[in-house]
């Protein structure tokens, strides 16, 4: 792989991400000249690059996409879901090819064939299919409006009004047809357009006996009159009624992608208010602006914002001040834009990322390891400097050593933190593929859902972010597949057809809290209990004793799935138990809350830094071990009378819960000192996989901030240990993997 190819790979990946975001934004919010232009240029650039690194299959399909986007740019093709889907699929294909190219230096063997198929599908969207390009519902085609404009103001009393679209067959002359003669027979003709169906060929090539006309007309005639005139050519003629009928139908919901219209209306009101000059139309202006805005907001189901505007109008009237309405409208405008921000930050300023530096991840990792070793070294220096104090005495030397040590300590800690920052990436990187996931799944499941994302700016260690993708993906898919109901069901339960999924992140101190929330059908604790019973997860009495809330947490247990069938969307191998394991491996916690019929929320609580762990040093079986603090709930000194025995197990009561006691030495297969039954025992209460256990240890020593080194060599696969670190006095400390110990 040479440098040119490497550059091609990284640029292509970036362009694909950008174009994906823009495509989805355009689908959601409608035609936007700037975005469309960006998408077009992305395909254009991708096509060129593919050519430069000599990947003709890729270039072929990108060329087709580029042509399609050119038509959209020129407003000759509308932005439709089908078009966006095809364009996104094209990007998917190119992305897969880039990965293959990166791995093997070439595209897979069927690439050429795939490229041809994909190009064909893209180009199919370019051709003008007469029957499908019209509006699918019964509203009149657009040409009617244009034709009407041609008619000078005339005086027609209310009566029949029809439009006709006549496309004679090319061979109609041989049937004795004279299309214009038929049109001339139409009484009360009002407007006529005669156009070539296909572009006129050069005259020498023209066939004078092939009809190449498309004739459209508007007339104040009745259907019967039309039927009579066109009785011999009914297959070539389409007739539309234009006059008012007497039966009003209900105004249909807006299905055309409402986002852009609502934004435009609000913006227009603000512009109209800003253009105010005279004072005597002030009330009319801000009153009508408020009414129009509130109307539109209610129509698009934003009653909350509509009420704000109406309240502002009342206040404005009372105080005779237009600015209150203007301010309210400005708030509404940014309120409408808010959910967009999280998704759109990436596309908002593609140029802004140019100030970053591309660095090899391996370099950062090695820097990070070095920094970790420095921390260990500074810890031992600190320890030594403490030891040396009594030797050196109170004099200058002692003070200087102490001061130097403190300086070193703080510098190294600071440097380590800075390097840790290098690995911090914003969560938006994680979130950016989710709008697409939701969109595709909605199409597939025939459900309607909207995804809002918040907190993408929160940062987290890259390793954590990478490992969070799979679990989050599973949670979102789960929400869509099992949580959110089909539109009919939602309507029947009085819920809005458009379901809502929220993906939110927030920092709470040194923890990161992530939430996946849906307003679907919720989790039925009874169903979970029943399944748990069926699977024999735990004794009947225990299941019954669980509160509804605790029963719901059972969904994280292995082997439990309350969905009727394991669908291929959320069922394959990634269960909720795997999600919990992943989260706990990252040092986090997961919990679910749910209200039946209202929705479900899954919350992940993660440490921001996986790198530095707080370790509690404990003694057991004559050895020292490290216990990761993030699992430790508390330590308890137990007097013998608090300890009860049930068969061979010991336990004690802690705030109304029975906590089993395990001797750490026993668990680790170490020789135990005989228990002094009179001495109080020391237990450390840990929380693992939703369960609570008390580990009995001989002693608890100090705590330290440690960077874990992974197990090496012969012990690499030893279970129960998650790594080693150095204790303050320089001994190697085995850090226990408590999860594994109790799994």
């Amino acid at each position, binding site marked *: 792989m040479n440098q040119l190819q490497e550059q091609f790979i990284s640029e292509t990946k970036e362009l694909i991400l950008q174009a994906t975001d823009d495509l989805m934004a355009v689908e959601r919010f409608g035609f936007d000249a700037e975005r469309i232009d960006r998408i077009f240029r992305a395909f254009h650039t991708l096509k060129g690059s593919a050519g430069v690194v000599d990947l003709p299959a890729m270039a072929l399909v990108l060329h087709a996409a580029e042509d399609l986007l050119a038509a959209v740019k020129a407003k000759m093709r509308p932005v439709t879901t089908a078009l966006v889907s095809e364009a996104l699929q094209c990007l998917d294909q190119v992305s897969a090819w880039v990965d293959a190219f990166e791995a093997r230096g070439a595209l897979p063997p069927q690439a050429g064939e795939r490229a041809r198929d994909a190009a064909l599908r893209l180009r199919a969207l370019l051709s003008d299919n007469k029957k499908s390009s019209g509006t699918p519902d019964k509203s009149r085609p657009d040409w009617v409006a244009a034709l009407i404009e041609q008619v000078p103001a005339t005086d027609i009393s209310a009566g029949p009004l029809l439009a006709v679209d006549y496309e004679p067959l090319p061979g109609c002359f041989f049937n004795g047809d004279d299309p*214009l003669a038929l*049109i001339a027979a139409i009484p009360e*003709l009002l407007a006529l357009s005669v156009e*070539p169906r296909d572009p006129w060929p050069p*005259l020498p090539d023209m066939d004078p006996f092939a009809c190449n*006309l498309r004739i459209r007309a508007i007339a104040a005639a009745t259907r019967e009159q039309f039927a009579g005139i066109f009785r011999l050519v009914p297959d070539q003629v389409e007739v539309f009624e234009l006059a008012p009928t007497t039966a009003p139908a209900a105004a249909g919901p807006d299905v055309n992608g409402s986002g852009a219209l609502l934004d435009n209306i609000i913006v227009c009101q603000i512009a109209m208010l800003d253009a105010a000059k005279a004072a005597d139309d002030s009330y009319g202006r801000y009153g009508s602006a408020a009414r129009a805005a509130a109307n539109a907001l209610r129509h698009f189901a934003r009653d909350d914002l509509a009420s704000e505007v109406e309240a502002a109008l009342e206040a404005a009237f009372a105080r005779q001040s237009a600015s209150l309405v203007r301010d309210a409208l400005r708030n509404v405008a940014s309120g409408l834009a808010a959910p967009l921000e999280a998704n759109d930050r990436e596309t908002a300023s593609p140029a802004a990322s140019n100030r970053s530096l591309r660095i090899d991840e391996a370099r950062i990792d090695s820097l990070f390891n070095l920094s970790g070793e420095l921390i260990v070294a500074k810890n031992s220096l600190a320890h030594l400097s403490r030891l040396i104090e009594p030797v050196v005495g109170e004099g200058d030397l002692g003070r200087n050593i102490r001061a130097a040590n403190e300086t070193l300590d703080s510098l190294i800690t600071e440097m380590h933190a800075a390097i840790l920052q290098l690995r911090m990436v914003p969560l938006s990187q994680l979130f950016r593929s989710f709008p697409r996931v939701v969109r595709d799944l909605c199409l597939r499941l025939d459900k309607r859902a909207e995804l809002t994302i918040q907190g993408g700016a929160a940062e987290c260690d890259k390793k954590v972010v990478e490992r969070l993708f799979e679990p989050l993906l599973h949670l979102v898919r789960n929400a869509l597949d099992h949580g959110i109901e089909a539109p009919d069901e939602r309507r029947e339960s009085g819920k809005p057809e458009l379901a809502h999924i929220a993906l939110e992140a927030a920092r709470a101190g040194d923890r990161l809290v992530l939430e996946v929330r849906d307003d679907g059908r919720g989790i039925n604790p009874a169903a979970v209990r029943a399944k748990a019973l069926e699977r024999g997860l735990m004794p009947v009495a225990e299941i019954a004793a669980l509160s509804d809330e605790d029963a719901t947490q059972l969904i994280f247990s292995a082997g439990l799935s309350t969905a009727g069938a394991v669908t291929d969307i959320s069922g394959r191998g990634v269960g909720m138990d795997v999600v919990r394991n992943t989260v706990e491996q990252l040092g986090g916690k997961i919990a679910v809350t749910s209200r039946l019929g209202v929705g479900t929320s899954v919350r992940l609580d993660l440490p921001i830094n996986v790198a530095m762990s707080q370790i509690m040093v404990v003694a057991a079986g004559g050895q020292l071990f490290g216990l990761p603090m993030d699992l430790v709930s508390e330590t308890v000194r137990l007097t013998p009378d608090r300890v009860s025995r049930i068969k061979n197990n010991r336990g004690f009561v802690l705030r109304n819960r029975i906590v089993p006691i395990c001797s750490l030495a026993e668990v680790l297969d170490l020789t135990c000192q005989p228990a002094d039954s009179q001495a109080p025992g020391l237990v450390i209460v840990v929380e693992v996989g939703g369960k609570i256990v008390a580990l009995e240890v001989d002693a608890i020593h100090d705590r330290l901030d440690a960077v874990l080194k992974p197990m090496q060599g012969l012990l690499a696969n030893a279970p129960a240990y998650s790594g080693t670190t150095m204790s303050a006095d320089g001994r190697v400390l085995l850090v226990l993997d408590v999860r594994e110990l109790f799994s």
Partner: protein
Amino acid sequence: MTVRRGPGVIHVEGACGVEEAEILLQAVVEAPGAVIDWSACGRLHTAVVQVILAAKGPVRGPCGDPWLERWVARMARQ
């Protein structure tokens, strides 16, 4: 009834049926830029009108047929 050529002019006179379309087309091809004069025409078959529209050349009118003059002439004069 017929298509008649003059110097720089192609006359379309009387009622013209479908077969005149070929003659008119030939005339137009052989004399590109010639003015098509339809001021003395009668009813014209669609095929004949089609050739006039496709020719996109200068047309001298007003068209002898009032209906064509009212509805189609402006499209010929593009």
